[in-house]
């Protein structure tokens, strides 16, 4: 239904714009985060901070996995965009919670890094986006702070779209279940 060749065509190189959009995304994330105070002074419960911190480490892992693919030769714009998207999500959570956006989840990264160590990480990326969307979908029911809920719901919206695009890029454009159903298992902060 969605032609992967067409999607490949759409993902042509736009290297000259990378720096610009990277800066723009980060600026947007910081603007959305507002001026909430850091750490415990933010007024967030310990439980909310733990969940948000976990979600942020997941997003940083995703960023680093896309970096792995880019370093391995994945040089079309879609991979750079995905990298920047996930970094922006981590920064937004950092802005809301005051937690430093520095620590990725090594378990997530290590378990997927070999699959991303390629110039065509479409299938690995499709699976990662589904896991990320499923995880945030689960987490919106575990936090109380409305800013965190709104941020995570926003991530689900976009990571769901990412997954559909990546389903097509990975040759699953004719598979409606791959395009429209997220059957990934959510990661848990307790795991």
């Amino acid at each position, binding site marked *: *239904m969605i*032609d992967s060749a067409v999607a490949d065509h759409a993902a042509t190189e736009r290297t000259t714009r990378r720096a610009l959009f990277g800066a723009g995304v980060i600026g947007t994330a910081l603007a959305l985060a507002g001026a909430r105070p850091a750490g415990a002074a933010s007024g967030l419960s310990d439980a909310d901070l733990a969940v948000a911190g976990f979600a942020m480490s997941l997003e940083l892992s995703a960023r680093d996995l896309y970096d792995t693919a880019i370093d391995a030769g994945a040089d079309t714009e879609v991979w750079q*965009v995905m990298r920047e998207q996930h970094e922006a999500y981590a920064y937004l959570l950092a802005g809301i919670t005051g937690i430093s956006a520095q620590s990725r989840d090594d378990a997530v990264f290590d378990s997927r890094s070999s699959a991303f160590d390629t110039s065509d990480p479409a299938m690995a990326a499709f699976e990662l986006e589904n896991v990320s969307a499923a995880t945030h979908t689960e987490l919106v*029911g575990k936090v109380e702070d409305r800013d965190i809920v709104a941020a995570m719901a926003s991530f689900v919206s976009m990571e*769901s*779209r990412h997954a559909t695009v990546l389903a097509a890029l990975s040759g699953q454009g004719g598979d409606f279940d791959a395009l429209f159903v997220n059957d990934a298992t959510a990661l848990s902060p307790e795991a």
Partner: protein
Amino acid sequence: MPNFPNPSLDRRALIRNGGLALSMGAIIAACGNDRAGSDDPGRLGINPPVPTLPEAEVNDAVLLRTAQSLEYTALAVYEQAAGLDVLNGDETKLVGRFVSDHERHAADLGALISRAGGEEFTCPNPFIMDRAVMPILGALDDSDDLHRDVLNIAYAFEYLAGASYQALVGALEEASLRSSAMLIGGEEQRHAAALASVINPDSLISPALFGEPVDNDDDGFPVPYAIPSTFGQLTGIDLVVGKRDEGEGTRFSTQLQTPAANSFVYEYENC
């Protein structure tokens, strides 16, 4: 020249005495006690009385009933689209899948509404149907490209559905309901992404993500992107359909909005 009689009441006396009479009337009226009568604003002519709306709160049941109404709104839109018979085979299969997904979502929402202590609302959103869907469908009369219009309408309503769940999830009080609702919202966004890929296959990523302006196409239509932004957006969704007006050179345009006070399906509302 005739001689007019000299009046005993000259103009100055008339004005002075008239003003005195009005002032006394106002004072006497203000001194009355236990005066009955309506406090409503004055009305001119014969109009039906303004209806008194029931008291209503926006609770989880209302939010989920609104979401369910959006599913039935989407189904109503697709039913109208099917009647136009302008989609090709692949597009018809795609829309067929959307229809079955929306039916499943509506059923799932029914269970969530029951959990929230509410009654299902198994019909389209009345406000959105009146204010958006019907005018949009009306603009399709003598359209210059029904195929284009139907795809753009489908994209706009899938996008609206996805954005609406994103908005509603943030408002749900009961945390356990949020994940179930957002699961549906994610699927609506997937529908929207697939439709954007069909309508605009050559550019899946919005120029906004590269710091570039996002413009309508040369014919004035908003361009859908599979990945339109970094974060899920809750802003209005622009939709342009129909033929260009010969006089002004414009087409019918509207902006779809995520549900708010005027489009919530309150508990006193029935299909």
